[in-house]
């Protein structure tokens, strides 16, 4: 079980690095998906090794996938909007709300 949790922790760290350093909004969204997946691996791991009298963890992971899909849809729609207004999708462009 340690190996699965360690894999999830590494995946989460890599995703965090991507979110912190990417300059492209789509890159940030992709790193975010990595972090969602790390969380899902944890859910399923605990479901298999610790709480096995049911499939609560897997159902919850399913909800996480659905929420991540909804997040991706809205996020990429925002990407399209940003691209229309600024002709580029660097995060530096979107500092106009920073007042």
């Amino acid at each position, binding site marked *: 079980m340690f190996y699965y949790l360690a894999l999830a922790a590494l995946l989460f760290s890599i995703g965090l690095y991507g979110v912190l350093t990417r300059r492209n909004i789509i890159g940030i969204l992709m790193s975010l998906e990595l972090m969602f997946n790390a969380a899902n691996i944890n859910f399923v791991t605990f479901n298999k090794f610790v709480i096995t009298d049911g499939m609560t963890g897997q159902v919850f992971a*399913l909800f996480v*996938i*659905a929420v991540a*899909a*909804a997040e*991706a*849809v809205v996020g*990429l*729609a925002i990407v*399209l909007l940003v691209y229309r207004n600024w002709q580029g999708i660097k995060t530096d462009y979107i500092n106009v709300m920073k007042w």
Partner: protein
Amino acid sequence: MKGFYVAPYLSILIFIVIGIGLVLFTFFLARLIRPSHPYPAKTINYECAELPIGDSWIQFNPRFYIFALIFVIFDVEAVFLFPWAVAFGQLGLYALIEMVIFILILFYGLYYAWKQGVLKWV
């Protein structure tokens, strides 16, 4: 973890290995028997004997994009339909009502998209 649990997925593994291997083998074979005379005209995009105008990396129409967004939503709905369909035989009317509510809520989204005219190909 029992070993026999993995056995059904062995065929998937074999498929993946053969698929990757076939592609690599074909590339290797092609590299082995083809002549090698690189010159710059070979690297431009293939355009039926015409010189290509612009880059091959074109931006494509944003109209596809909205369809892709709606597709993702209904893909998630389809994934939720699968376990419902499997469990339906043991649950009966109650599950049917739940799923009808679920689909009606999402159907309103489709209706909204229709009314806003984003499904029209202008």
